[in-house]
């Protein structure tokens, strides 16, 4: 024979499956959700997905070129990351958001850690968490066509009701990948072709639902469970992100431990935290435990221990130490919080009382305003005034009483979420005739030297003694009219939020407080 034969170690045949196939299978499985999202939310949703995918691919390509690596775009993982990230974004975000998210996901989480198969957490989810931290309000605003969009889960947590069929099909507000039906369709495909197994989705969703049913006291009501399952990105997370092979455990027992852990974390975050982020943070945390689970969850090989001695599985010492440290510090923190909770509450009350006094100097004592209590109980967690004042919430209103017990004015505590750095809470004093007495901040975390300057007496004094229906912000300064407020220079966002909050308080005093 003239030609040399190939020689290699067996096996000499291989399955048709390649890494690219696996990735494109998942992309295919996401297509129903993608098409539904674009159909439901419109062209901007398409632009978001496209930006996200293009940014992911471009980042990977440039990294490969700059670091002189072989081009890895063909394995399809960058496309998948981009698509997944896009699907878990709100359909209203500006396009720089998916661009930056994919950039972070691919460059920092994937490429810097060694590329395909080496990322320590799911890149798409890490990208999403990065965006959540950076652009909190943009990310959690699910408004569609200007209609204020509370997600089904947000509605439900306030005791409202949701339409089960609409929610299941996805005709509601939420992320682009909102359709549960489309998700399940895709996941069924992946299960059939064997790209995922049932272990993670079932243990994850099951644990979450059981804990939510028990933990919230709602019990096993079908509608509640359906809402919990379909809402908050749980399906997208459990079916497509938690099952990401690179960041989830290999073995079936490990996958069940992982799924249950994710379920516990998600339920904890949902009950004690914010529903929108629960799934993302639970999976990201779970990802970090994957190497540990893989280390320990090695199944017994075939026949071992059935007829011979089984060596006991060894738990790495580091794992035990870490668990103990985590538990101890967790318990300690919780304990401190528990012990100081009453003090904190008392201090809050005292702070409130002080602010009431500050805005109603004439009052001798304060009493809760009954009609306001009823209102707050019913609508307190909803945006006041249908968005007219931005994201403003009424917290409380009290009557200011003089020595004889007659009402001299009202103090209304309002919170606006439109501050430059989150919430601003302030108390507005309104006298019986509708004149604003003054304002006082009880929660203010704005930028020092800019937004924080709204707390300067000179600026606050602009509101005092004026009887108007509403104030307007004058960004140019030099206001003369009663209803004009000069913006703090360089802090029009904070100033505007405060003006809106004051307007909401005036409106509330006029309409709901008697």
């Amino acid at each position, binding site marked *: 024979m003239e030609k040399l034969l190939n020689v290699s170690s067996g*096996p000499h045949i291989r*399955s048709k499956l*390649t890494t690219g196939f696996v990735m494109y299978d998942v992309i295919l499985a996401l297509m129903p959700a993608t098409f539904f999202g674009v159909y439901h939310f419109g062209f901007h949703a398409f632009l978001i997905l496209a930006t996200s995918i293009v940014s992911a691919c471009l980042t990977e390509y440039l990294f490969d070129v700059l670091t002189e690596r072989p081009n890895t775009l063909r394995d399809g993982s960058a496309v998948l990351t981009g698509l997944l990230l896009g699907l878990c974004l709100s359909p209203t975000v500006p396009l720089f958001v998916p661009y930056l998210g994919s950039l972070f996901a691919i460059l920092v989480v994937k490429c810097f850690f060694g590329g395909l198969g080496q990322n320590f957490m799911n890149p798409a989810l890490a990208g999403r968490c990065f965006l959540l931290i950076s652009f909190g309000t943009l990310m959690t605003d699910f408004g569609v066509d200007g209609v204020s969009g509370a997600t089904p889960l947000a509605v439900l947590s306030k005791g409202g009701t949701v339409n089960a069929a609409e929610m299941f099909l996805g005709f509601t507000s939420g992320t682009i990948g909102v359709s549960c039906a489309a998700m399940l369709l895709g996941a069924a495909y992946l299960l059939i072709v064997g790209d995922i197994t049932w272990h993670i989705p079932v243990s994850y969703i099951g644990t979450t639902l059981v804990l939510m049913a028990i933990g919230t006291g709602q019990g096993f009501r079908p509608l509640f469970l359906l809402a919990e399952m379909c809402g908050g990105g749980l399906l997208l997370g459990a079916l497509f992100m938690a099952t990401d092979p690179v960041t989830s455990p290999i*073995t079936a027992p490990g996958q069940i431990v992982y799924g249950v852990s994710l379920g516990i974390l998600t339920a904890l975050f949902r009950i004690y935290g914010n529903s929108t982020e629960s799934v993302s943070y639970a999976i990201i945390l779970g990802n970090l435990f994957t190497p540990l689970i893989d280390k320990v969850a090695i199944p017994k090989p075939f*026949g071992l221990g059935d007829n011979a001695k089984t060596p006991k599985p060894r738990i790495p010492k580091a794992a035990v130490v870490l668990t103990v440290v985590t538990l101890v510090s967790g318990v300690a923190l919780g304990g401190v919080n528990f012990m100081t909770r009453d003090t904190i509450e008392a201090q809050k009350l005292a702070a409130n009382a002080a602010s009431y006094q500050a805005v109603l100097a004439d009052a001798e004592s304060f009493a809760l305003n009954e009609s306001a209590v009823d209102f707050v109980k019913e609508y307190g967690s909803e945006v006041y005034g249908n968005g007219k004042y931005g994201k403003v919430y009424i917290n409380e209103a009290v009557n200011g009483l003089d020595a004889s017990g007659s009402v001299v004015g009202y103090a209304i505590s309002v919170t606006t979420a439109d501050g430059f750095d989150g919430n601003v809470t302030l108390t507005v004093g309104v006298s019986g005739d509708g004149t604003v007495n003054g304002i006082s901040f009880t929660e203010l975390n704005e930028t020092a030297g800019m937004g924080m300057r709204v707390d300067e007496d000179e600026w606050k004094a602009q509101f005092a003694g004026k009887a108007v229906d509403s104030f307007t912000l004058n960004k140019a300064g030099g206001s003369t009219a009663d209803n004009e407020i000069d913006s703090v220079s360089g802090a029009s966002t904070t100033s505007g939020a405060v003006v809106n909050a004051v307007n909401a308080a005036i409106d509330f005093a006029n309409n709901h407080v008697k």
Partner: protein
Amino acid sequence: MRHSTFRGGVHPGDRKELSRNKPIQYHVPKGDLVYPLSQHIGKPARPVVKKNDPVLAGQIIAEADGFVSANIISSCSGKVKSIEPRMTSAGVMAQCIVIENDGKFTLKEGIGEKCDYTKLSRSEIVKKVQAAGIVGLGGAGFPTHVKLSPKNPDEIDYIIANGAECEPYITCDDQLMRNRADWVVGGIKVLLHMFPTAKGVVAIEDNKPEALAAMEKAVSGDERISVLPLVTKFPQGGERNLVHAVTGRKMASTDLPANLGCIVDNVTTLTAIYRAVCLNEPLMEKGFTVTGEAVNEPGNFLVKIGTNVQELLEACGGFKQEPKKVLLGGPMMGMAITDLNIPIAKSYNALTCLVEDPVEIAQKQMTPCIRCGRCARVCPIGLVPQQMQVAAERKDYKRYERIHGVDCIACGSCTFACPAKRPLTQLFKVTKSAILAARRREAAK
């Protein structure tokens, strides 16, 4: 009813259609026959002939050296040409006895005389099997007389005839069962005579309906023997998986089948036992498949042990297309060879000639591991190849042993299934031998 099987495994395309309907032919060698001294597990045999000695077919030319070893029998008549190192498989030179074939195949006296096994005791049968040089002909090459001498002869309750033939391409066991079912059943009856508490089971993958039917017919009338169809899945014929599929018992890597009350023999081995015990014919020939897309006329043969591979290939009309790769055995566990000028040893059962090399293609498609877990799902003995790979690449042998990596049977299922095309089995073979070598060094201290 669902056919019996085990957990895990893969479904490679079996390609058995190339040769499955080609009846067994006798191949009569013309050239020299070459007998490696080591064709079995255990110590190599000791030659008992010298250069230029005349030999007859059926004569012992090398004797077992110790209990775990096996005799080597001349399969032709002629004279000893030399005792010298020859190429025996891929790049391996080993001591061989070369016999110049006179083409007459004159038999040694007494061969072919019928013998009634029911009059023989268990130890007499073991002696006959030992003298006949029989080893596991399915590929393992473990001396059969050792297998037939368990410590607990009264606890043996299963005689399993392994006719799974799960390796793709190979069809000689299939044809053997179709054409020589009486030999196979004869072998089982000999074993049932040795272990009267046992029952016989012929286990065959369900992709061989003709063999199932033929064996069913051959065992009818004997209550003690049954035929069991198995799911067609690789590695169904692996000893531990087969025992599990047939009996539900799970063999650990440290167990012998006899510990679980089983004697497992390949159907070809059973025919050899039958012929040795009942016909006084020592192991001179065996079933062998020549197949693959590169071969002109693939076929199944009864070949003389020691036959030159090249000569047999020419009997099949040679190559119709230049092969990329030639394998001794099937594509899952077979061994790639560089040279066709090698002898057929006792444990070889096929020559597979591939026109394209999937490994070559796979190397181009290789990506980093994406930890999809398919390897763990297909592993027939429940290992986690992904974790073994990590440990092996770091040369972290402690971890490798702790996750039972040494249990790996090198079946190739994980490598077959891997979408990232990682060369897992290769790595595991290397690692296992490194660990075993280290253990031997430790023991020698």
